[in-house]
């Protein structure tokens, strides 16, 4: 896919999430109006009032969930806006974890952002960086039988930026983890993505980790 294709996908996704947000806003207000009316309605004149109030509360909770999901998807779609950008790495990792949590949950794996308080700013392609980090997590998840934790730790060393994605737990056999690494789809994709980012990745079998290294340009 070229830059124009990627921007096209981003633009369409951003537009749809905007419309979805309007749908959610309408549902929220309509259920809010129903709650308002119920609250000024006599108990005797409205059988099962409490049941309706509870159900309206559940609708509101689901709307909140939908708003968070569409908001994050909209944010993701805007990664395609600029080929290169100044990125707050900690913020990008938070976003990554939100987007990846579902895949980890299926394997009963917890994702932990180990970002330090220090702000790390890098100038790079945000979409490809997300893709590279996603491939690292995907690779470890595919190696995992079930359970454990994947921690993501950013670090700045001079002009270089490192992100370590480390698996902790009993779900991966450390001896076999990187045995078929050269034929892994995730690592093949990671390799080409890292080339585009002018970076590299390393496998650390003893620590069950994938480490990516890129220039911060900041």
């Amino acid at each position, binding site marked *: 896919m070229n830059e124009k294709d990627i921007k096209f996908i981003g633009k369409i996704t951003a537009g749809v999430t905007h419309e979805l*947000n309007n749908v959610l806003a309408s549902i929220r207000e*309509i259920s809010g*109006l129903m709650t308002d009316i119920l609250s000024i309605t006599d108990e005797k004149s409205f059988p099962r009032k409490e049941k309706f109030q509870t159900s309206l509360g559940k609708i509101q909770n689901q709307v909140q969930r939908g708003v968070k999901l569409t908001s994050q998807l909209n944010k993701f779609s805007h990664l395609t806006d600029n080929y290169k950008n100044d990125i707050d790495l900690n913020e990008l990792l938070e976003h990554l974890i939100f987007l990846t949590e579902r895949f980890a949950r299926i394997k009963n794996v917890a994702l932990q952002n180990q970002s330090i308080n220090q702000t790390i700013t890098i100038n790079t392609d945000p979409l490809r960086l997300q893709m590279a980090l996603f491939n690292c997590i995907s690779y470890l998840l595919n190696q995992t039988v079930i359970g454990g934790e994947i921690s993501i730790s950013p670090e700045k060393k001079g002009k270089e930026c490192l992100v370590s994605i480390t698996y902790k737990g009993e779900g991966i056999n450390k001896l076999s983890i990187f045995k078929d690494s050269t034929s892994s789809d995730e690592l093949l994709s990671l390799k080409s993505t890292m080339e585009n980012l002018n970076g590299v990745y390393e496998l650390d079998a003893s620590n069950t980790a994938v480490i990516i290294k890129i220039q911060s340009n900041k």
Partner: protein
Amino acid sequence: MDNIHVLIVDDEEDLAKTIAERLEIRGIHTQTASDGDKALNLIKSQPPDVVVLDLMMPGIGGLGILKQINLLENKIPVILLTGYGSRERSIEGMNLGAFDYVLKPCNLDDLIIKIQEAIKIK
């Protein structure tokens, strides 16, 4: 809040009318408009105390309506309703003199607080 009149402008008619009904329950008088022409006609014929204005609308859009409101002799405070990807437009709106902005979907209590604050400053 009996004497407060608010105009809600949003091309999402269901949303505008429902917010209006909820404000009415709380004693705030409301009108709604779904486009710029209707909104400007209402503003001229029955000036509200506050305008709640969606930014992303067809036609002249929220910012276009805001510019027209700014040309009126009697200043009317405007609270912008903004969605995703409207951050730059929100900033532009604030630079054009909007009183404040709220994110969609907005919390009604927060909106009422902003309406009251806008009236105080007016």
